[in-house]
C-alpha cells in the first residue's frame, strides 16, 4: 500500500482516490512500481543493517547490557547521567575537539596549498598529482607504522632533524602533552590527498576569464587569489569542512594503531573510548549512550557549519 500511496501522492491526486478499485492496478502498472521493486531488496538490506542497529543501539543506551548475560534491565537515563560524572568522557570530549579544531583547518590549508601549486601546466604534473593522492590509497596501518618510527623519541628522523637545528629532543608519543599532536600530523598527512583532489577539481572549474579580467584591472596574483579564487572555492571548502569534521569527530584507526588511547588517556577520543567501553569493558549500554551523544554532537556541528557556511559560500549558477 505504501507504493500506491506514494504513487498517488506524487501524481498530485486527492488522497481519497487511494481506496478506489483500480488504484492498485494503476500503481502496479506504473513506472514507479518497477522502480520500487528494483530498489526494495537494497532498501531492506540497508534498513536491516543500517536502521535496525541505529534503533537497537538507542534501546541499548537505556539498558545495562553487556551482551553476555541475557539480563538487560532498563536503567532509564543512568548511562547518560554516568557520562556527566565520568572524567574520562570529559577528557575524551576535550581531545576530540582539540583534534578536530586542528585537523580540519590543517588538512584544508595544506590541501589548498598543494592544489594551487599543482593547478598549472608543468612537467610531471600527473606524477605530482598521483603522489599527492597516494596518501589516500595507503592503508592506515602502514601510515601509522611509518609515523610511529618517524616520531620515535630515540630513533626517529624527526628528533634527528630537531637535533640538527638545535631544538630539544621531544618524547612525542611517550608524552601526554604531545601525543595528540602527533596523531594530528599523522591524519593531516593521510587526508591531504583527499582535500587536494577536491580543491583541484574546484580550481579547474574557475573560469580563466575572471582571473584575466582581474589582472587587466591591475589585481596582483595574491589579490586575485583572495578576491576571486578563494570565494569561488567556497562550496568546495564548505564540503570539505563538513566532511572532514564528521570524520575528525569519529577518529579511531590512528589512535587504535599507534597509542591505544595512551599515554595516560592523552589520545583517548570519543570513539576510542566507546570502543574501549564496549569491547574491552563489556559495557555495551554505556558505549551506546556515548555513541548517541557523539551522534548528537555531529548533527549540531554539521547544522552550525551549514548555517554559518551559507554566509560565506558563493554558488555560481
Amino acid at each position, binding site marked *: 500500500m505504501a507504493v500506491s500511496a506514494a504513487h498517488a501522492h506524487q501524481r498530485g491526486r486527492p488522497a481519497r482516490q487511494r481506496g478506489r478499485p483500480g488504484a492498485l492496478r494503476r500503481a502496479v502498472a506504473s513506472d514507479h512500481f518497477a522502480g520500487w521493486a528494483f530498489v526494495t531488496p537494497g532498501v531492506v538490506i540497508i534498513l536491516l543493517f543500517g536502521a535496525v542497529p541505529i534503533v537497537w543501539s538507542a534501546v*541499548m543506551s537505556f539498558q545495562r547490557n553487556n*551482551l553476555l*548475560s541475557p539480563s538487560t534491565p532498563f536503567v532509564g537515563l543512568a548511562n547518560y547521567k554516568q557520562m556527566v560524572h565520568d572524567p574520562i568522557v570529559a577528557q575524551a570530549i576535550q581531545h576530540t575537539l582539540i583534534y578536530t579544531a586542528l585537523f580540519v583547518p590543517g588538512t584544508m590549508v595544506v590541501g589548498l596549498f598543494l592544489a594551487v601549486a599543482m593547478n598549472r601546466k608543468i612537467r610531471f604534473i600527473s606524477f605530482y598529482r598521483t603522489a599527492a593522492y597516494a596518501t589516500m590509497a595507503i592503508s592506515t596501518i602502514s601510515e601509522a607504522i611509518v609515523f610511529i618510527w618517524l616520531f620515535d623519541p*630515540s630513533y626517529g628522523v624527526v628528533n634527528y632533524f630537531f637535533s640538527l637545528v638545535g631544538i630539544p629532543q621531544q618524547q612525542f608519543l*611517550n608524552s601526554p602533552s604531545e*601525543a595528540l599532536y602527533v596523531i594530528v600530523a599523522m591524519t593531516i598527512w593521510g587526508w591531504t590527498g583527499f582535500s587536494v583532489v577536491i580543491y583541484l577539481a574546484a580550481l579547474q572549474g574557475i573560469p580563466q576569464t575572471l582571473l584575466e579580467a582581474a589582472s587587466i584591472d591591475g589585481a596582483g596574483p595574491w589579490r586575485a587569489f583572495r578576491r576571486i579564487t578563494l570565494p569561488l572555492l567556497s562550496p568546495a571548502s564548505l564540503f570539505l569542512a563538513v566532511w572532514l569534521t564528521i570524520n575528525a569527530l569519529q577518529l*579511531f584507526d590512528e589512535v587504535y594503531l599507534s597509542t591505544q588511547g595512551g599515554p*595516560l588517556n592523552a589520545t583517548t577520543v570519543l570513539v576510542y573510548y566507546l570502543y*574501549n567501553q564496549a569491547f574491552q569493558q563489556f559495557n555495551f549500554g554505556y558505549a551506546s549512550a556515548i555513541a548517541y551523544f557523539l551522534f548528537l554532537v555531529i548533527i549540531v556541528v554539521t547544522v552550525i557549519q551549514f548555517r554559518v557556511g551559507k554566509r560565506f559560500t558563493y554558488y555560481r549558477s
Partner: protein
Amino acid sequence: MTKHRRRGTTAVLLTALTAATVALAGCGSDSGGGNAASSGPIQIWEGFTGTEAKTFSHLVSEYEAQHPGQKVSSLYVNNDDTLQKVLTAVRGGSPPDIAYLYGSWAPNVAEIPQVVDLTQVVKQPGVDWNDFWTGERAVATVNGKVIGIPALVDNLAVVYNKTLFAKAHLAVPGPNWTWQQFVADAQKLTDPAIKQFGTAYVTPGTEDTVWHWEALLWEAGGQLLSADNKTAAFDSAAGLTSLETLRTMAVTDKSMYLDPTDSAYGNLFNSGKIGMLVTGPWDLSSFPNVHYGVQIMPSYPGSSGGHQTISGPDNWVIFNNGSAHVSAAEQFLLWLTAPAQVKYFSLQTGDLPTRQSVAQQASVSTQMNAALPGVSTFVANLGNVEQARPQIPQYPKISQILGTMIVSVLLGQSQPQAALASAAQQVNQALAG
C-alpha cells in the same frame, strides 16, 4: 610483549560490526538449547595460522580417521575478534560448538548462559586434570566452575642479547639472579651515544603493560587483591618495591626504552639496540639477527615470592547446541588435549606443552629447543607459574586502572607511593560498584 598482534580495524568496519551484532541480536531468537537430535559435524572456531593451522588440521583429520562417524569442521576466526563473533552467534542462536577464547575473557565468558559447564567432565578418569599447569587450571575456572580446557600456554622470561653482554664485559644472567642485578646490568648496557638501551617496557597502558608488572608484584611477595577478591591488596611494601624497580630504570637510570605502541621493541631488540627484554616464547622467532639467550625472571632476595612468572593461557570453550553436539565436542576436546596430541602439537609448532607430563619429557624439551633455541627455558619456566590474575568480571576495569598507574610512574608523572594509593582507591571503588 604483545602476544596477539592487532589487526587494523576501521571505525567504519567497527560500526558495521556493531551494527551486525545488534541486528542479529535483534532478529535472532535465543535458542540456546538447540536440537538434541541434530547431528552433523561439530563446528570449531580457531585462530591458527601457518604451522599451527597445518598441525591443527592434521590432528583433526587424524581424529576423524580414528573416530568413524565423527566430523569436525573448523573455521578460522582472528583470535582478537572471536568473542565479538561468538556473542553475535549466541544471540543469533547458532554459536559454534567449540571456540578458542583468550583466558583474559574467562570471567566474562562465564556469564554467557550457553557456555557448557565442564566441571564434571574434567573429573572423568583419563582426563587427569591436574596434569594441566596450575596457571592454566586457574584461568579455566571461574567461581569454582570449569568453563574451558587449556588450549595454549605461555609465560614471561628474560631474553637477552649475548653479544651486548660480552661487549659490556658482563656475566650473562644465571638462574639465581636478582632484580638488583637486572637493574645494574640494564644500566651498564645503556649507551645514549649509540642509542642502546638496557631493557624495554610497553606503555600503552593496556593489559600488556599490566601483566609484566604483575609478575614483579608476585615476586616481591605481593598480591593484587585480597583473597576474597573484594579489596585491593597491591598498595603494599611489595607493590612499592616492584614499582620502584621499574621507576629506577625508566626515570632515574633512563636504561629502559618505553614503547607506547607495543610494536617497536621487537625490531629494536632484533637490531641489537636493547640488551634485555621481559617477553614470551612467541617473540623468539622474530629475533633471527641477534645471538640471544633466555633466563627465567630475576627474584627479589629476601622475598617469599622467589622466581615467579605470569602466564596468559587461552581456553577451548564449549557452547550448548544440544546434547549430541555437546558430547561430541567434549569427546573431541578431550582427545585434542590428551598428552599424545599435546606433544605432537608442541613439537610441530614450538608452542609450550599445555600438560606437565609432556613438558617433563626430556626429549620434548630438547627437540623443541633444537627447532627454536631458548624455548626450553620457557618450558621449564611453566613450573614457576604459581598464580593467576583474579578471575572476576571487573578485571578489565582494574587492568585499566593499573595500566594508568604503571605508565604514570614510568613517565615520571607520579611517585610510586602516591600512584599505588590512588590506584588502590579506584580499584576498591570498581570492586564495590
